[in-house]
């Protein structure tokens, strides 16, 4: 199968969805501009016209309400924001309207919108351009929250989200856009609410999501060499959370490390640790989580390395859980500065 980038996979999903159904439209600041939201929306306006693909004013709250309204008549809007952080302006519309519309009208109406939000990371994005807010969205009943970690899932989950009748928050980690992987040309779906076992293993269950799954994969390889067999589960959707799949795995491995890309407290990782602990009492070591310190994200290059855990920290954490030494660990030579996804990246955004 051919390989394409995550960004390209998103772009293909959009082409495919818009071709499949005239009801699909897409809008947001910069959607039809020359950069095409990190090239995920490139070519859409040329192909589908400026009625279905358009730029918007900087009015996040109203634009979300407008998407909701359009969706009530069967239109399927895919809204895009260049950063999750900007979407905080639209919390009234997404929480008070979108998430509740179906239930507060007794199921007589539904709101089939998809909100694509880019999670910023690296290059001094700082406190208001790199927040990971999935735990907040996941706490709201009536919202689905999707966080793909690879091109295949990105395409399949986006298509599923668009044609799902409920409002979906679709989070794309900026550093995944450049990831390359096998993606079918044709339309296919990946179900929302199903976690995926990326690697089978017997000694510990590691749950991960979005970009952290990439870091976890490196760690798991390393740990294998060190004699620890990890079962790596990519959550894929935080709401609904496939807790059954996780519990099945922990029942086998009897150990849990929940990895999250957000700050630690009151997070998805808290929920996973809690749910597992309530179900399974006989673990071989206490359940654990690895996430960000409870601090706003730093800007300085001198701070971000320590703030963001990666493959090395995951490996160390697991080794500690097995009571093994971590000192000699020196295997993750950084091939490029810690604050960029690759050498090609020179900033500024």
């Amino acid at each position, binding site marked *: 199968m051919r390989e394409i980038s995550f960004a390209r996979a998103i772009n293909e999903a959009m082409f495919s969805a818009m071709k499949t159904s005239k009801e699909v439209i897409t809008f947001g600041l910069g959607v039809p501009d020359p950069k095409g939201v990190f090239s995920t929306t490139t070519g859409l306006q040329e192909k589908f016209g400026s009625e279905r693909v358009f730029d918007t004013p900087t009015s996040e709250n109203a634009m979300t309400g407008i998407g909701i*309204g*359009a969706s009530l*008549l069967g239109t399927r809007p895919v809204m895009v924001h260049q950063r999750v952080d900007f979407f905080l302006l639209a919390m009234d519309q997404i929480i008070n309207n979108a998430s509740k519309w179906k239930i507060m009208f007794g199921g007589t109406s539904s709101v089939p919108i998809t909100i694509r939000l880019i999670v910023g990371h690296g290059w001094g994005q700082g406190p208001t351009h790199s927040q990971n807010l999935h735990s907040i969205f996941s706490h709201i009943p009536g919202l689905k929250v999707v966080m793909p970690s690879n091109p295949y899932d990105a395409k399949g989950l986006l298509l599923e989200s668009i044609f799902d009748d409920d409002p979906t928050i679709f989070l794309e980690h900026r550093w995944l856009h450049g990831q390359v992987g096998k993606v079918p040309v044709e339309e296919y779906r990946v179900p929302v609410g199903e976690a995926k076992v990326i690697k089978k293993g017997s000694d510990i269950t590691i749950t991960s999501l979005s970009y952290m799954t990439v870091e976890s994969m490196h760690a798991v390889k390393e740990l294998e060499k060190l004699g620890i067999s990890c079962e790596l589960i990519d959550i894929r959707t935080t709401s609904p959370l496939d807790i059954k799949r996780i519990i099945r795995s922990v029942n086998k491995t009897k150990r849990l490390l929940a990895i999250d890309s957000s700050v630690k407290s009151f997070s998805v990782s808290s929920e996973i640790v809690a749910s597992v602990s309530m179900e399974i009492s006989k673990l071989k070591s206490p359940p654990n989580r690895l996430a960000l310190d409870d601090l706003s994200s730093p800007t300085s290059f001198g701070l971000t390395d320590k703030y963001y855990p990666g493959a090395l920290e995951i490996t160390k954490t697991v080794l500690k859980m097995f009571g093994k030494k971590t000192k000699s660990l020196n295997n993750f030579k950084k091939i490029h500065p810690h604050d960029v996804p690759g050498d090609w990246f020179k900033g500024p955004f």
Partner: protein
Amino acid sequence: MNKSRNNSLELFKSMLRIRMVEESIAEKYSEGKMRCPTHLSIGQEAIATGVCSALEKKDLVLSTHRAHAHYLAKGGSLKSMIAEIYGKVTGCSLGMGGSMHLIDKRAGFMGSTAIVGNTIPVAVGLALSIKLKRRKNISCVFFGDGAVEEGVFYEAVNFAVVKKLPILFVCENNLYSVYSGLEVRQPENRKIYKMVRALGIDTHKGDGNDVEEVFSLTKLIREKIVNNAGPQFIELDTYRWREHCGPNYDNDLGYRTEEEFMSWKKRDPIETQRKRIKSNEYFNLAESFAHEIEEAHKFADKSKYPSYKQFRSIQS
């Protein structure tokens, strides 16, 4: 002439029915069977009736916390509304919304919500979809003078203008947001419709207690919209007679003067219209409405609550 006489009577009937429905709610509220926040429109009926009567059935309406009048005027089912306020499964939202969340899609009443201003962009979204689908109807949203203070109103109007969408914004200016007068919320002497005009939209102003004026103004404006004149805004002056939320009068609280209240009460929209039509049908009408309303309350009272299973199944 006859046609217009007939229309005047229809307008009167619609208002009278709404008034009687709302008074029945006020009267029975203390029975404790309608257990949700309830905002009555008594005194403001001319706007709901005037606007909705000038709309076509296929036109789509959204509203606010104070939605009963709009819902009924647009043709929403009375029984379903009363049952909704009783929290029953026979309600228009299966009892899951209450007084503030009414819907009757068959009548083109697309919903009402309890957060000030937040149906305004939703209505713009309806208009966007209407335009994309090349339909010939329009979207219309009701809101109060307080909602105008929300930034989302401004954002929504801006977008509607940029895209020339088929939408009518109807602002019911009843001078108050809960107990707060306009003077603590908006600049002195600033007229809402003039301010809004500067956003780039055609605006209009009318007497919200004169149903004929509201009706003919809306007819005209609707015509403009369907002829691609772009979005339109109308401000209508009116006055709420009872307390902001609940069944009682509250002039004793002192947030508004007795004179102000009386001067508006004299301008009762229903009385004004009654004088115009010089109809002797009043008693017959009132009787038949009273009967219909009583039936609706009985229906609601006898209906069942939704089951928890039903409630849960909707969200999963």
